[in-house]
């Protein structure tokens, strides 16, 4: 019995060791899981990420006749509506990146021109152009923030005719010669219409803190 007992003891010992190893691994895993995620590097205003625009809600406005002739409303296929919403989401995201993020184009005309139906930009008032983000600002860097929207789509069974997107996009801009970031928010609605799918109508606000006075007219110097 003694050899069997010794062997059993040895097996038990191995099992015990294995159990201890498993417990140790599990504990280590739990500790690892409980450890805070490594802090991501702070966003670099000189190398901003593009906007990740999401459409959080889609409202359908079907045009197919609602039972006027038959007395029964029929369901309308929504594939055309969903495709149109995705296309307009992508177009709006491109506008936001061109208008506010890309160093070569931000706060210029290119983003707004590409968003609007051809020729419309040239007919706009200065206030309308400003609301679209065409501003003369000494911006040195940008950090993109959240961008979310809701869409309403006018469509029939085979085609979409219009999509309005009600959205809000936030970013932080850095003016040249300053370290502090300034929050910029654009919110409102743009209306994309067939057949060009350029924006024909919009209602927008753009909140932009003014740039600090240039060094030659800083309050400190002026009062000195």
């Amino acid at each position: 019995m003694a050899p069997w007992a010794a062997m059993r003891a040895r097996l038990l010992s191995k099992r015990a060791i294995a159990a201890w190893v498993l417990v140790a691994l599990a504990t280590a895993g739990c500790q690892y899981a409980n450890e805070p995620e490594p802090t991501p590097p702070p966003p670099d205003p000189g190398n901003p990420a593009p906007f990740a625009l999401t459409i959080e809600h889609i409202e359908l406005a079907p045009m197919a006749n609602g039972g006027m002739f038959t007395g029964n409303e029929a369901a309308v296929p929504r594939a055309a509506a969903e495709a149109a919403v995705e296309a307009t989401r992508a177009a709006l995201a491109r506008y936001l990146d061109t208008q506010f993020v890309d160093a070569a184009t931000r706060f210029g005309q290119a983003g707004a021109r590409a968003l609007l139906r051809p020729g419309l930009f040239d007919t706009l008032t200065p206030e309308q152009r400003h609301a679209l983000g065409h501003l003369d600002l000494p911006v040195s860097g940008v950090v993109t923030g959240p961008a979310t929207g809701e869409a309403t789509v006018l469509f029939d069974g085979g085609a979409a005719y219009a999509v309005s997107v009600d959205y809000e996009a936030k970013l932080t801009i850095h003016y040249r010669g300053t370290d502090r970031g300034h929050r910029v928010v654009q919110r409102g609605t743009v209306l994309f219409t067939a057949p060009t799918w350029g924006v024909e109508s919009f209602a927008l606000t753009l909140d932009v803190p003014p740039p600090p006075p240039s060094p030659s007219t800083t309050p400190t110097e002026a009062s000195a």
Partner: protein
Amino acid sequence: MRRLAVVVAVLLVVSMGAAAAAVVHHGELRRGYLKDGLLTVLVIGSDVGPPLRPGDPLRGRADAIHLVAVDTRALRATIVDFPRDAFVGGRKINGHLASGGPSRLEAAVERDTGIAVDFWVLATFRSLENLVAGIGGLDVVVDTPMRDPFSGSDFAAGPQRLDGPQALSFVRDRKSVPGGDFGRTRNQGSALRFAHAQIRRSHRSLPELVRLAGLFARNTATNIPPAELLPLALLAADIPAANVRQVPLGGTAVMRRGASTVLLAPGAAFADIRQGRVGP
């Protein structure tokens, strides 16, 4: 320090100013038929259509006929109300729909008025109820008390909000309104004015106008191309309510071939529109 405070205050005001109301741009109609700047739409109410009166609404009798003329540049409009018994196109106007559909009715109106009609729009009893429900009820001002078991009207005089069935009875009642069918026709035109004012007041945002275009398309038959419904909704929303004039047509009731008909006395109503004089 004082200068610093002033600068900060100015910056705050400028910053707050930047957060003012939305800057709006509404698209414009740039269609070929608007070369003369005049848009005309014939609005028709059919007395046929499921579920109340099964049948083809496009072959019913036209119990409501209104010509809406819009100056798309000056943003002004005139609504001309035709009594259903008016003698137009060689017969009672409401019979043209039954005999030849909306295009025949449109042609008869064009021939007798000299006004080119761009589009027609047709609604039924049920679709009118749906349209009113879709805008959350219709705010009207009732001129005189209305009570008529046949149409279902039961309204005190004054401003009130009507639901779909009530709005239907408001535009159908010809027994308890002064002037009989003339009064009913005037109430129909008023309902169009009230609906327009309400859209201006409460449904003017772009998503709301998209919703309304869908609501309108689902509940009317029309020859307006689908892609032009939304531009027309934008146009309607841009016209101030005070720029809309209603012209209820009067006339003389006579018996013709055993039926009561109205010989219209349009005054300058048609000539004004032909010459582009639209609105108040």
